[in-house]
């Protein structure tokens, strides 16, 4: 049974692409893309391969696909159709960037629910402008979040004391916390919590032991305790380099 699941997982394509769909009304596409991906990604080209994403714990390479839509509803109908089945299967995330004038404009994104192959990916709306009240915005956010779609507004809001990201920062956090396939991730071993080593690393033990013997003999011959302490500290530091 476990073997079957493993085989099934192995046969699934890697989710290693992020699709950014801009409304044609968004003027600063390049600016938003460079803020999110911090690289040379711009709206000038539709596909960027091997964009490097680094966090303090890992780095990963993924592709960024960019598209522009006139009508979100139409665009989503096409995207959710079986013609785009393969694309849906390889998407790690889907980001819609648009000004939110009417609440119904935003609700159109709920069409994503029709995409069966979209499970396991994140979906977000980055609102460049909001034309309705904060209360309505909160209602919409809650309505979408239960469907697995997060809405974030591209503007500064007061934090709650503990970092509360919004806009581009939140999108970056969503990419950071996405469960990237293990094969794609390169861990940064300086920051990731270290497990005890399974195999003993190669250490010049003979050299370390002979140095310890020499140091011990020298230490015993010392009269002053302060001098001895300093010597012991120096030896510890020197031996520490081997470990």
């Amino acid at each position: 049974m476990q073997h079957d699941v493993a085989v099934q997982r192995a046969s699934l394509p890697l989710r290693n692409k992020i699709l950014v769909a801009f409304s044609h009304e968004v003027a600063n596409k390049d600016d938003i893309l460079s803020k999110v991906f911090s690289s040379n990604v711009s709206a000038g080209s539709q596909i960027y391969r091997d964009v490097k994403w680094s966090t303090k714990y890992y780095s990963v390479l993924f592709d960024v696909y960019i598209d522009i839509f006139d009508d979100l509803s139409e665009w989503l109908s096409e995207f959710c159709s079986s013609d785009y089945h393969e694309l849906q299967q390889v998407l790690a995330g889907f980001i819609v960037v648009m000004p939110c004038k009417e609440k119904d404009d935003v609700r159109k994104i709920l069409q994503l629910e029709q995409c069966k192959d979209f499970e396991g990916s994140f979906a977000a709306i980055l609102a460049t402008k909001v034309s309705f009240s904060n209360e309505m915005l909160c209602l919409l956010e809650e309505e979408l979040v239960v469907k697995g779609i997060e809405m974030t507004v591209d503007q500064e809001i007061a934090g709650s004391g503990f970092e509360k990201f919004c806009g581009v920062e939140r999108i970056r956090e969503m990419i950071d916390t996405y469960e990237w396939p293990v094969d794609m991730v390169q861990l940064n071993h300086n920051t990731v919590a270290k497990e005890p080593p399974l195999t003993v690393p190669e250490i010049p033990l003979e050299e370390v032991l002979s140095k310890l013997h020499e140091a011990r003999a020298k230490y015993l011959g010392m009269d002053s305790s302060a001098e001895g302490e300093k010597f012991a500290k120096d030896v510890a530091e020197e031996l520490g380099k081997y470990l």
Partner: protein
Amino acid sequence: MVQIKYMLMVSRQGKVRLMRWFSAYSAKDKTKICRDLTTSVLARKAKMCNIVEYQDHKVVYKRYASLYFICGISSETSNELLTLEIIHRYVEAMDAYFNNVCELDIIFNFSKAYDILNEVLICDGSMTETSKHTILKTVASMDALETSDNLDQVLS
């Protein structure tokens, strides 16, 4: 007094990042609680009350950035406001330990998040330590011990 039955940490995207059970629940019940609370807490509006009734007990939750801290407490014996304070104390301890904690820190250091929680709450779900300073000091000594254990393992 507060006796917590369970604590869950859920991301805004509905992923459970940490869970600690202080009362006995079957695996089926645990799954149900996680599923029910993730859905209902995420669906609650920002201005709604942070205390909800669920099954035979109460649930107290608080959102910090993209994470929801959810605690199940007994209706009769536990104080809801004190539970909120415990959650806050736990978040403060993690914030100090990780120096501005974020979801990614918890994902990659989940065992540390559990260690800190173990210092805050004892195995029956009651608070064991209120001082952030003491919690951090204990966790720091655990880290030192762990490092020396690793060193011993290498030397042996």
